């Protein structure tokens, strides 16, 4: 019966592949197109909000830590993450090639390497998130990465302008205070006696003592808000206080890299399923050049493709 239909072969009789691609492959392409629009929507929202903010966290400052206590290594860790995805994309191409040759062992070997690359990427992302949330206290609604808009000098422990100067455009990270519980309230208040009059200009902050910074102003969430004297411009001489950076940054970062990471995670799961199927000899029987491997390959390259743009907007620009 099937042969009969192919012989008759009208366009509407079925069994004829449009674009000379199988149904599964074609639909994978259209799924990826729709997914590209979802990601584009996210990234364009990021761009619009970034354009609407007077300052934006500088990526080489935000992403400058790596595991094993490495600091001040701007973008190095995310570059390694990018390489992991690129390499796993290449091993995926190799798996597809071995599939065309009906080489089962080759398919299984290269898919296994691809899974390892994807898992490595997820591990790196887990570390990056843990560092941002646990050490740097960034959340979906809180962004402790700020940028100075004026030149200034930080107030020293005695409340007078100190040695530490900064320029407009420089970044800072608000730290959580490491409070010393042995100090009584009276002692803390006494420590502030030399700071002169307190004018917080509407900020709700309390006085506290931090082990590293000494007597500092800490907000109700425990973040140290360092005070500084503006050196130049219209408000020269005014004493101001560090503030949180643009709030949208945290939400955008976690949702966009999280959505991408979720794609990587589901990709790894599907790769594993197809890897097991391939190893069990299921696709040998189908005799279609391991087309299933080709389809998951398309998806996996797309994950790499999206990372190219996530990498561009979050880390490079």
């Amino acid at each position, binding site marked *: 019966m099937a042969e009969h239909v192919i012989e008759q072969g009208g366009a509407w009789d079925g069994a004829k592949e*449009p*674009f*000379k*691609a199988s149904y599964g492959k*074609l639909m994978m*392409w*259209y799924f*990826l*197109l729709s997914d*590209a*629009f979802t990601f*584009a*929507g996210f990234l*364009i*929202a990021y*761009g*619009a*909000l*970034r*354009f*609407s*903010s*007077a300052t934006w966290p*500088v990526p*080489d400052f935000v992403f400058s830590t790596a595991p094993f206590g490495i600091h001040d290594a*701007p*973008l190095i860790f995310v*570059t390694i993450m*990018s*390489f992991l995805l*690129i*390499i796993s*994309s*290449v091993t*995926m*191409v*190799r798996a597809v*090639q071995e599939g*065309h*040759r009906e080489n089962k062992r080759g398919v299984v070997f290269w898919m296994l390497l691809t899974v390892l690359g994807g898992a490595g990427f997820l591990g790196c992302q887990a570390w990056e998130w843990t560092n941002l949330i646990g050490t740097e206290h960034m959340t979906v609604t809180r962004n402790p990465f700020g940028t100075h808009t004026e030149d200034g000098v930080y107030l020293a422990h005695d409340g007078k302008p100190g040695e530490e100067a900064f320029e407009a*455009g420089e970044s800072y990270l608000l730290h959580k205070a490491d409070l010393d519980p042995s100090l009584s309230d009276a002692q803390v208040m006494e420590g502030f006696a030399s700071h002169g009059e307190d004018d917080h200009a509407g900020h709700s902050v309390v006085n506290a003592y931090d082990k590293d910074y000494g007597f500092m102003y800490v907000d109700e969430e425990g973040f140290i808000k360092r005070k500084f004297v503006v050196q130049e411009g219209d408000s020269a001489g005014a004493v101001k206080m560090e503030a949180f950076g643009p709030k949208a940054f945290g939400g955008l970062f976690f949702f966009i890299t999280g959505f991408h990471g979720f794609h990587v995670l589901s990709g790894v799961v599907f790769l594993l399923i197809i890897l097991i199927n391939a190893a069990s000899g299921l696709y040998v029987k189908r005799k279609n050049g391991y087309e299933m491997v080709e389809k998951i*390959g*398309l998806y996996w*390259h*797309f994950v*790499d*493709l999206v990372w*190219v*743009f996530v*990498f*561009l907007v979050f*880390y*490079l*620009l």
Partner: protein
Amino acid sequence: MAGHKTYEESIRDVYKGLVLLAVVTLIEVGISLLGKGHLGVDVSDYSWILAIIAIGLIVLSLYKAYFIIYEFMHMRYEVKGLAMSVLLPTLLLVWAVIAFFQEGDSWKKRREDVKKRETVDPNAPASNQESFRIPEDTYLLKLG
């Protein structure tokens, strides 16, 4: 399908692709760090250099995207109709990028305006009040 290439040729091409993507990524990271002043040169005062860096980063990323789609995803070997039906719809995003980035820039101007208004002392004499520019597309309701 790997087209008309031999097996050895197509394997060599894959590793060439790996080297190409790796080198492009390293160049991207390099010029990004250059723009941020990490390579010993401070270019932050030259806005045209920063503009070239930003455009260069976008162009290199688009090239990587092209390479991944055409080589790794084998779009080069698909029927033209398939390639166009997948790629052409993404051109709609060009409009979205222009429209929404412009909108974002406009939000920024409004925010600055609001901030300025908030600092005005209502008790100051009228002659000292700075007059505010009302955006051209604001319609004022005339009463009476």
